[in-house]
């Protein structure tokens, strides 16, 4: 049986996850810098008491986005270094993971663009969809047997 970690598809998925992870980490770190700047320069649109909902969800976007980017990197490395699942299963997990990384922090961010007083905007409804995708991805990862590189099943 072929070592899944060596398969071209597996490698491709790993590379995709690594690339995506680092790029999204960059994006959400920049968001963090922007939020710090808004705080440092006391921008009303961010800091006014009426904008508490925006402040909350944008902080959530930054934190979740950065963290989940690292998760993407970790899973990419996992794929590179261990033989776990069949490619279709790995593909599914990758899609769920990438979808979750886009939708969860993305939903938080969009929800902060236009707020309804104490509620985030409509974009917030993407967040639970992203959360579900992430949950499924991690669940499937948990269910998959992990073997170190080189071992054949």
């Amino acid at each position: 049986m072929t070592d899944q970690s060596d398969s071209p598809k597996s490698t491709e998925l790993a590379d995709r996850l690594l690339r995506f992870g680092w790029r999204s980490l960059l994006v959400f770190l920049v968001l963090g810098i922007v939020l710090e700047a808004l705080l440092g320069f006391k921008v009303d649109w961010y800091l006014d008491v009426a904008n508490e909902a925006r402040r909350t969800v944008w902080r959530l976007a930054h934190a979740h986005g950065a963290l989940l980017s690292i998760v993407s990197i970790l899973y990419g490395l996992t794929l590179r270094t261990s033989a776990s699942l069949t490619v279709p299963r790995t593909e599914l997990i990758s899609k769920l993971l990438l979808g979750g990384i886009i939708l969860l922090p993305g939903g938080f961010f969009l929800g902060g663009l236009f707020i309804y007083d104490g509620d985030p905007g409509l974009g917030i409804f993407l967040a639970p969809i992203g959360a579900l995708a992430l949950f499924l991805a991690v669940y499937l990862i948990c269910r998959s047997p992990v073997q170190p590189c080189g071992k054949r099943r």
Partner: protein
Amino acid sequence: MGWVLLIGVSALFAAAAAQVWLPSVAMHPVSNRPLEEAAPGYVSSGACRACHPRNYATWRASWHRTMTQRVAPGNVLGSFDGIEQRLLGRTYRLHRRGRQFWGDFSSGDGSRVKQVQLVMSTGSHHMQVYWYPVGQGRLLGQFPLAYVKEAQRWIPRNAAFLMPPGDDPVDETGRWNSTCIKCHTTNGRPRVVSLVPSADGSHVDTRATEFGIACEACHGPGAEHTSANRSPLRRYRLHVGGGPDSTIVNPQQLTQELGSQVCGQCHSVMVAKDQRTALRIHHEGALYRPGDALSATRVMVSPRAVAEPTQWDELLARNPDYLRSRFWSDGRVRVSGREYNGLTESPCYTHGDESRGILSCMSCHRLHQDTGDPRLRKDWADDLLDVGMRTNRACVQCHDRFLSEESLALHTRHEPGSSGSLCYNCHMPHTTYGLLKAIRSHTITSPSVAETLDTGRPNACNHCHLDKTLAWTSAQLERWYGTQGTPLGEVHRSVPASVAAVLGGDAGERALAAWAMGWEPAMAVSGAGWRERFLGLLLNDPYDAVRYIAYQSLRRQPGYEDLVYDFLAPAEEREHTANKVLQGWTASNEDSLEQQEIYARLLARRDNRPLTLAE
């Protein structure tokens, strides 16, 4: 090492868990003052914050919130530095014991000293009054001193209100529990079970959902609203679809009448509609809820609207001065805090309609500062006026024919930009009294010499043109507006109306005249070098409040900024200062014999009937 770490972490965890899960030390419930507690249907303002952060923040910055507070460091205005103060023959000492605030006061003969812990306060914008437990359950007594912010000093509570001179503090035991609570709290319930004191104080079990005027005072009970809006689907349906939320009251979305009544529930002169309702209110608190018609449970006391002359007989039997202490003789309200009465008698309210607009409180006032409002929060909070509502914008939003400077000048007969060009100054002059000052009347009227003659209420013209007579005003009004002239006697043809009020008016009229003499726009147009004499005369007025106002105005006159005077000093001392001021004036001015005679006649005919203005 690993074991040490494990034990350390476990110990920390156990300590944290103990904090959370072990039963906390039993707290003795408060029993010596009114209780702040939830009530069925109410959630209190903390529950509103999560969804309405901006409105919550603006309310927090308003004076409504601090109308009633528990006395605590940070919300006490007065100085409690322990220094003794002697006022009107009594000795007082205000001091702290840790986080507690205490007041000592002696009996009239000094034989007994009472020490009381001050537990609650009323007010914070202009002055603050304090309450203490009298030892009968939740019944409160009023500390005899009040703290006045403007003067930065303690004064006897009696002196903070316009009331007849007298040395004995009025006994206000139970006043907060039965009266103040109705407007100074949210969902206040007096729960005066019996007027017969019980040994354990249970005859008075006063409670309120929230001290101060909070969200639910104007928006109604919020339990249904918070419960319904826990569902994000419902909230977003409302966000996207717009439209009113039927589970809460928004006064701005009510009709002008019902919306104004949300304010009018407190800012009016009202009595329960019948004895049975009065008893229920006495126990359960106000039965009115925002959105209701006030008339369901109350009757507005409005002498001008009385159809039956005997309507107030019962009220007057209990308190013969009830009407006089609140209204001018023509039935217009003369005290502050009763603006709804004034509003409902204004043509802008009574003659308005859907096409032209109907005046309501919210035509000018904004109870939550708008997002785009450039003013500092404290400037908005001062009078809760909307942006631009200190200008003619308040009026031309309906009376748009006065938008142009030309038409405005033609109407006002005053230079554009002058104080005479401001609608307020002619149609809402400072002719109501309260808080040791004059306040704009909320009855929108036009100046009338006849009304001044009939009631003593200053008209807008003479309230600014302090040096002019009623005859002058009558002639101007006749020439400009075709108003029928009023026959006037010698006094009103020769003596400025403000002077006639100072010399011959009742205490309330004297207070208004004294205030006007220190009002910048009036000072600017009425000449200089003459007001000091009459203000000096008022430094010896029998009413504390009149003397206080006269002193404040006198200090605004050139050359008198540093005048030292204590309006509560013994009479001889006050007279000495008053004489000094009068001598200073007389040295450079002289009255003609004729004038002296007129002044003497006015003084001799002064309205000296005891007057209490129930602001």
